[in-house]
């Protein structure tokens, strides 16, 4: 698969950071640089003025109450908002320094590099094998497909559980296994980013911990952004946490705002903003 059209060589420069209050300085290069992002759905101003950098090979968590815009921002990273006809994105999202919303960028190509895992496991009604091979086939992958399927399932910590029943339907798997299959499917197309929207909220605690453990291993190779309502999950797995909140404008409109973005250990022990303190300590009503 040809990836050189989107990932520039040499790799992006180190950013010094600190130019915006919501962008902590990174000791790792940024994979995404978001600057002044606004998202509209028709007249609805869903997210306002978000500026932040996402560091490479880290897990970044987005937390905040329902309607705060965290999923909306997540969907900007692989242009999923393009699929909503009324959606409009302003400001800039740069991926490896390239404008993700530039005129020459193909959203399908973007999604090949920026994979996504959804809240409910959504395997295709196909065999386990075909679920993983689906993306590479569409991308006209001409290497050893068996090896790619095995490698992807191994990275998703599922291989040992399914290697003897690859031709069985994906629906024979448990919820937690299905979600790991979806992760295998996402990484089969060799992305370098994984977006996860509430990836464990439909799973039991053990399956949840397995996904979290997997995320920890995956960040060696991928940059991960996770949206979660589970604050303990954010504090357990992520390196950095962004807290979004709902702001009611003068006109009575509700809009999402980035309130605080810090290292996770700092955000959960010494949050800087009172809104963050109230939310993470559960005093927000």
């Amino acid at each position, binding site marked *: 698969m040809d990836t050189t059209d989107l990932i520039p060589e040499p790799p992006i420069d180190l950013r010094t950071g600190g130019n915006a209050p919501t962008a902590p300085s990174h000791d790792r290069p940024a994979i995404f640089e978001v600057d002044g992002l606004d998202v509209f759905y028709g007249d609805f101003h869903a997210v306002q003025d978000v500026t932040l950098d996402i560091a490479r090979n880290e897990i970044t968590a987005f937390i905040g109450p329902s309607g705060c815009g965290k999923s909306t921002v997540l969907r900007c990273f692989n242009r999923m908002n393009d699929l909503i006809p009324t959606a409009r994105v302003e400001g800039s999202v740069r991926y490896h320094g390239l404008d993700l919303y530039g005129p020459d960028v193909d959203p399908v190509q973007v999604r090949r590099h920026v994979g996504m895992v959804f809240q409910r496991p959504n395997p295709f009604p196909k065999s386990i094998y075909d679920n993983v091979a689906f993306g590479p086939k569409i991308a006209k992958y001409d290497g050893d497909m068996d090896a790619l399927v095995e490698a992807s399932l191994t990275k998703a910590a599922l291989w040992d559980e399914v290697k003897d029943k690859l031709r069985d339907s994906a629906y024979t798997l448990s919820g937690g296994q299905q979600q790991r299959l979806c992760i295998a499917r996402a990484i089969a197309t060799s992305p370098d980013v994984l977006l996860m929207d509430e990836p464990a909220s439909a799973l039991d605690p053990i399956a949840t911990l397995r996904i979290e453990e997997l995320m920890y291993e995956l960040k060696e190779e991928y940059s991960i952004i996770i949206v979660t309502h589970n*604050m*303990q999950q954010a*504090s357990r797995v992520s390196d950095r946490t962004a807290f979004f909140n709902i702001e009611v404008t003068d006109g009575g409109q509700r809009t999402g705002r980035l309130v605080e973005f810090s290292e996770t250990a700092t955000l*959960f*022990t*010494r*949050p800087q903003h*009172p809104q*963050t*303190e*109230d939310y*993470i*300590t*559960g*005093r*927000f*009503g």
Partner: protein
Amino acid sequence: MALHDDHHHPHELRHHFDDELDEIRRGLVTLGSLVVANLSRAGSAILENRLDLVGEVRHGDEPIDALYAQLERETFQILALQQPVAKDLRLLVAATRILYEMERSGDLAVNIVNCLDREHGFPRRADLDVLLGRLVAASARVFSMGVEAIASLDENAGPATDSADDEVDELTGRLFTEIHRVSEEIGLDAAIELTRVGRFLERIADHGVNIAENITYVVTGSFPDGHEPPAP
């Protein structure tokens, strides 16, 4: 003052949890007050050779140990069950440290009367008694400042208490010099026991400073400069 009453929200949640945190804080103040009361008895004992108070001070340490154990249990239970973060977490972590400081201070009050008991009363010298009286008062004051900080959640408590402790250190130094000066008159055994008393009073004040600095940590998220607790 409730821990979170600096923010007002129309729809506050976790009232039950807030009550649990306030109960821990009230318990710490009660425990600190028991220590202050026992320290006061120990002070009277050594200043007036009240050997009858020795048993009372030893007995007075029992409710301190019991309340210490109870509050530690409750603190660990909240840590385990409520998954506190931010200021809540800082309060509970500080509570475990403060509990230790208080329990040690209680033991030191007993150590003080043990010194008196071994000597069956101290020889009295006017210059020595003046310094000893001032040290007892200053040490109790600094420790009490720590206890008051738990109630007031004053973010400046740490630095303020640390400054107040300077007087304790100075008086301790002067007491040691005076003991040395009169050591031949009062005898070596009494000189050693009085020196230990001075040392115990100085330590109690240090525990008060540590308590107040933990309160500064609860409120601000960091210890006063250069006063971070030692790594475990």
